[in-house]
C-alpha cells in the first residue's frame, strides 16, 4: 500500500512466460527446487519399489529397478501384525485426543484470554512451564499413574495424558486474543453469559485456530512413538507406530514386507496432508508467528 507505484511490475511473477521483476527468468529457481524435491521424495520411491519386490529382487546387486508387483508383501503385513486392529487403535487414539484437546484447550484458552479471575496469570504461567520441560521428565511418573490405575496396556492409558495440552491452550489463547472484542461485547450487552458467548460467539470465530490445532494434534498423535511404546506391550492394544517397531524386530531383514508396512502406516497422514495442505501449512505458520 505504502509502496510507490511500480504497479505494472509488482505482480510480475504472476505473468506467464517466467518473466519476473528485473527480467530474471524463473527456470533456475525451478531447477534447484526440483532437484531438492527429487531428493525429498526419492526415499518414498525406493520404499514403494522395494515394497513390490521379492526379497531376492530387493537384495540383488546392482539394485533391480523393476517393481516385481509382488502384492503379497502387503497381505503379509496384515498377517504378520494385527495391522487392521492397530490401524483402528491409532484412529481411535487420535480422534479422542483431538476431540478432548479441542474442548479442554479452547475452554481454558478462552477463560485465560478473556475472563478475569484471581490467580489467572499465575496459573497460566505455571501451565506454560510444562511447555519448557522435555517429555522424559514426566514419562516415568505418568507410567506409574497408569500402573496404579490399572491402565497399562490399554487404549485408555495411551490416550489419557494426551487429552490435555499446554501447547494447545497457549496457541488458542493467542488466537482468542487476536479476535476483535466488539462482537463479544455486543453479545454481552444482549445478556449472554460467558458460556453462551464462548460457545456460540467465540468458538465459531476461532474456527481457523481450532482447525490448526486439530490438524497438528492429528499429526502428533498419529506419529507418537515413545509413550505408546512404553505403555503398550500387547499387539492388540498398540498403535501403528509401535506395531511397526515390533514388526521390525521380527522381520528385521524382510525389507519388502517392512517397506509395505511402513508405507501403509504413513499413508493416512500423507493423504490427509494432501487434502488439507492449506490448513496444515497455515497452522504451522501460525505457531511460528507465536
Amino acid at each position, binding site marked *: 500500500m505504502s*509502496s510507490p507505484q511500480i504497479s505494472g511490475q509488482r505482480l510480475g*511473477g504472476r505473468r506467464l512466460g517466467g518473466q519476473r521483476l528485473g527480467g530474471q527468468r*524463473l527456470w533456475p*529457481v*525451478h531447477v*534447484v527446487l526440483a532437484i531438492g*524435491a527429487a531428493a*525429498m521424495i526419492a526415499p518414498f520411491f*525406493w520404499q514403494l519399489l522395494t515394497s513390490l519386490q521379492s526379497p531376492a529382487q530387493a*537384495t540383488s546387486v546392482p*539394485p533391480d529397478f523393476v517393481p516385481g508387483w509382488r502384492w503379497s508383501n502387503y497381505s503379509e503385513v496384515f498377517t504378520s501384525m494385527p495391522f487392521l486392529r492397530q490401524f483402528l487403535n491409532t484412529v481411535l487414539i487420535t480422534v479422542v485426543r483431538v476431540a478432548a484437546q479441542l474442548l*479442554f484447550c479452547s*475452554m*481454558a484458552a478462552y*477463560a*485465560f484470554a*478473556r*475472563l*478475569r*479471575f484471581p490467580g*489467572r496469570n499465575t*496459573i497460566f504461567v505455571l501451565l506454560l512451564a510444562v511447555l*519448557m520441560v*522435555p*517429555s*522424559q*521428565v*514426566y514419562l*516415568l*511418573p*505418568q507410567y*506409574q499413574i497408569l500402573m496404579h490405575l490399572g491402565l497399562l496396556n490399554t487404549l485408555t492409558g495411551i490416550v489419557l495424558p494426551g487429552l*490435555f495440552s499446554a501447547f494447545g*491452550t497457549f496457541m488458542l489463547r*493467542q488466537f482468542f486474543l487476536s479476535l476483535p472484542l*466488539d462482537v463479544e461485547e*455486543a453479545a454481552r450487552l444482549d445478556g449472554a*453469559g460467558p458460556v453462551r458467548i*464462548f460457545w456460540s460467539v467465540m468458538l465459531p470465530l476461532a474456527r481457523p485456530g481450532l482447525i490448526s490445532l486439530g490438524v497438528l494434534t492429528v499429526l502428533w498423535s498419529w*506419529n507418537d*512413538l*515413545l509413550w505408546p511404546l*512404553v505403555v503398550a506391550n500387547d499387539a492388540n492394544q498398540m498403535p*501403528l*507406530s509401535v506395531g*511397526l517397531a515390533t514388526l521390525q*524386530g521380527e522381520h528385521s531383514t524382510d*525389507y519388502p514386507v*517392512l*517397506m509395505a*508396512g511402513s*508405507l501403509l*502406516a*504413513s499413508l493416512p497422514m500423507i493423504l490427509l*496432508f*494432501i487434502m488439507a495442505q492449506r490448513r496444515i501449512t497455515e497452522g*504451522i*505458520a501460525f505457531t*511460528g*508467528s507465536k
Partner: protein
Amino acid sequence: MALAKAPSAPAAVPAAAATGPRRRLGVRVGEQNGHPREWIWGYLMILPLVAGLACFYLWPIAQSCYYSFTTWGVFGGQQWVGLANYRAFLSDPQLPKAAWNTVLYSLLMLLAIPFSIVLAALLNQLRGRHVGLYRTLYFLPVVSMPAAVAMVWRWLYNGDYGLINYLLSLVGVHGPHWVSDPRFTVYAMAVVGIWSSLGYNMIIFSAGLKGIPRHYYEAAELDGAGRVRQFFSITLPLLSPSIFFVSVLTVIGGLQMFDTVLMMLGRANPALAGSKTIAYLFYEDVFLDNRQGMGCAIAVVLMAVLLVLTAVQFRLQKKWVHYE
C-alpha cells in the same frame, strides 16, 4: 500484544461506539478483577485442563525431580540417596560419548536452517500451482511417521543392498555400513533429521518471508543493490525472528533425539553402544535396566540444560534478532 491494537479497531465499527469507551479495552474500569460470577465461570472453564495438566504433567515433573535423589527397591519404594544418581551419571563411562553424540546431532540439525531458508526464498519467487506442488513434496517427510521413516532410511543406508551405497558406487566410492558403523551413525541420523525437518522449516520461513514488506526490496533495487546484496541486508535481518524460533525448536528437538536411535539402529545393533544419545540413556535406565532414579537424574539434567540453553538463546537474540 493483541490488546494494543484494540483501540483503533472498534473505531471503524459504529456499533462499537455505542458500548462506550468504558469497555473498549476489555478492561472494565472499576471492576479490574471481574465480577465474582465471572470468576466462577473462569475457574470452571479452566478446571478440566488444569486438573489434567496438574495430574499428568506438573505433579509428575515434581515427582521426577524427587526420584532423581532416590534409588528404587526391587519391590518398589524409594530410598533417599542424595546426589548419588547425579554423581553416578556424571561419572558414567557412557556419558561423554552420549553427550557428544547429542550435541553433534543438534549442531548438524542446525544445518537444515540455511538450506530451508534458501529453499523458502526460492519458493517465494513462484506463484500459482507450482508452489503447492513443491510444498507438498518437501513436506511429505514431515507428515510421515518417524518410525516408518527410520525403517526406510535404514534400508536406504544398508551397507550391501542400500540405494545410497549403490549411488556412491556409481561414482567410484565404496560406501560404509552407515547404520552399523559407529563412526557414521550420528551423521546418518542427522541426514534423516534434516530431511524430515526441511519442509517444516520451509513453511515457517516462507511465512516469515511473506511478512517482509515489498517496498524494502523496491527501494534497494532503486539504490542499485543486487539480489545477493538484498538477500543479506534485507531478507536475513528481517527473517531473524523466524530463524530464532526455528533454531530454538531445532536445539530443543535435537537434544531430545530418541526415535531414530531406537528405530533406525535398533537394540541389537553393534553400533548402538557408540551411537547412544542422552535421551536414549534415559530410556535404557528407566525402562530397560530398572535404574529409575538414575534415569530421572538424566531427565532433570536434560531439563536444566534445555532451560539454560533456551535462556541463553533468548539473551543472545537481542544481539541478532530484529523485531520490526
